[in-house]
């Protein structure tokens, strides 16, 4: 099928802890279509983050395969994986993961510069992205001068500025109050409405109601 963007087959991630072995992700297979908004849910320790790390190419699975846009990611070397993350994937971390030495605009600029854009173009793009997440007045603020919700929005702006094919987000609202959570989730929804594929780990009970587009994990398995 042409509009399948992520194809996961028999994906397993095993952790060894001395003699004990733990299957954090246990032989899961699924497809994600272009433009979908996938929520990964499950209890704490069920393997949600671990799965997302594999999909986001931040970690390597023990076995199984992940195809993204038709590319078997197993075949990529480290350099190519880095380039893949830069050009095709956006990642929103639970704790924002901004560079403290860079202000909001500069944080968003680095992936753009890395992509070969001129400084002025990168600046413009970064400002547009920050504008989109409602931070028009905070371009020059450093992470330490931003609230948690604002930092998460910078993180989202950084993830989307390169027009990635897929945006991953690991509990992007876990540290935020309900009001800000709504703001962020609306933002992600809007992104999805405009065609962006999104894979998000979430605790939000709301989403469990609609069985559609939800991957529920328990002990590393899809249930």
């Amino acid at each position, binding site marked *: 099928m042409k509009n399948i963007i992520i194809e996961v087959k028999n994906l397993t991630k095993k952790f060894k802890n001395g003699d004990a072995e733990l299957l954090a992700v246990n032989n899961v297979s699924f497809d994600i279509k272009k433009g979908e908004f996938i929520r990964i849910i499950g209890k704490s320790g069920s393997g949600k983050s671990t799965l997302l790390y594999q999909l986001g190419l*931040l*970690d390597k699975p023990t076995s199984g395969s992940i195809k993204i846009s038709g590319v078997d990611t197993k075949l990529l070397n480290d350099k190519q994986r*880095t380039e893949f993350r830069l050009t095709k994937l956006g990642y929103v971390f639970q704790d924002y993961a901004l*560079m*403290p030495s860079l202000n909001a605009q500069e944080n968003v600029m*680095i992936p753009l*510069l*890395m992509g070969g854009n001129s400084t002025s173009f990168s600046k413009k793009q970064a400002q547009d992205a920050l504008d989109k997440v409602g931070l028009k007045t905070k371009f020059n603020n450093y992470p330490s001068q931003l609230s948690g919700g604002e930092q998460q929005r910078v993180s989202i702006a950084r*993830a989307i500025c390169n027009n990635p094919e897929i945006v991953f987000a690991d509990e992007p609202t876990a540290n935020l109050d309900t009001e800000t959570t709504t703001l962020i989730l609306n933002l992600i929804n809007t992104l999805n409405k405009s065609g962006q594929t999104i894979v998000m780990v979430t605790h939000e009970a709301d989403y469990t109601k609609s069985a559609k587009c939800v991957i529920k994990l328990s002990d590393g398995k899809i249930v």
Partner: protein
Amino acid sequence: MFYNSLKVGLFLAVREIKKSSILANGLIIMVMMLTFLNLMVGRGVLIGLPEGATNSFKTQYAGDLIITKLDNRKNILREKTILDEVEKNQTIQRYSTRYILMANFNADYKKAQTGTLEIDQTNAELVGIDFDKEDEVTNLSNYIVKGEYFNSSYQKGIVVGSSILGKYTSVEGVGNQTLNTPDVGDKIEVVVNGTKEVLPIIGVLTTKVSQVDRRVYIPKKVLKSMVSDSDYKIGEISIKVKPGNTVDDLKIKLDHYKKYAYIRTAEKAQPQFLSDIKVTFSILGDLIGTVGIIVASITLFIVIFVNAITKRRYIGILKGIGITNLAIEVSYVLQATFYSLVGSILGLVILYGYIVPYSIANPISFPFSDGIISADLKDTLVRTLILITSAIIAGYMPARMIVKQNTLDSILGR
């Protein structure tokens, strides 16, 4: 991708430095600067010691070029011809001729001369000089420690090197018999080629050149009146070259007189032990310098490593969002370059703006040398370059080590 990596590396490095606290930046730069100075000064003192001795030998005795009598002769041969040529030569700024005779100096000349053992007397070179010309070449008047130097109204007397007077020297032994009782103002008997004359000691001088301190100076007019014309002959000519001319050119010009006298630059004429010390100290200095560079590199490595380690998580995040390893490495290398460059430049400013001028103005006084801190510019620059290079390596290695680690582990801090 390569160019992009450089660009991002620079972008990150500049912001990283800008955003660091003044205290942190200041501390790293200070460590770099102290490392730099440590590298330069220890060695500089060692090299500077014999260099100071050479300097003293040159400025207090030999001038740039010194013409001396051949070993088996009593004086310079063909002195008139040589002197004419010296007089004519346009590259010579000043020169001083010295008439040198062995003489006996007796402080107990009033006592009955019974046995030699009890008599306070010694032998030394009596050196007749044109005191103004000599002063222009060797600044002897500067080294008078008591009494005064000759002047036109006060010249019937002698100026004595400090090694000859027991009151001014601790160097006494077989080779250095001193006059124990006399001091400035006292009269002693000077016996030269049978002629006796009682003359007052008008001054005592002490330099860093042992030969000079073992001599007795007398205005040449006075000497001429004491000895026969055949004994009144030039033993040394010290020559100062005009600025902008080289002593080597002058030596070539005068070299055809080498049958009649030794024609040597100050460096060549200095006593063997000085050249030997110079070589030894230079080896020691290089050894200390090498150890200094190793210590410096390790210091830099630790400072930069600690800095990079604390940023491990951020390095992981950068990798996570697709920044290349090269960009991250470049950013750390540039930071290291910046810190070591600023540290070295500060060090250079302090070295040449303060330490070297200070050491020249206030030399460390050693018996044979006014120790200066030697800092040959070319040498310093080579060392600076080595320091910066090792800083760059020290910046690269930890960045490389962290970049090579698992991205996720770095981000999650495990």
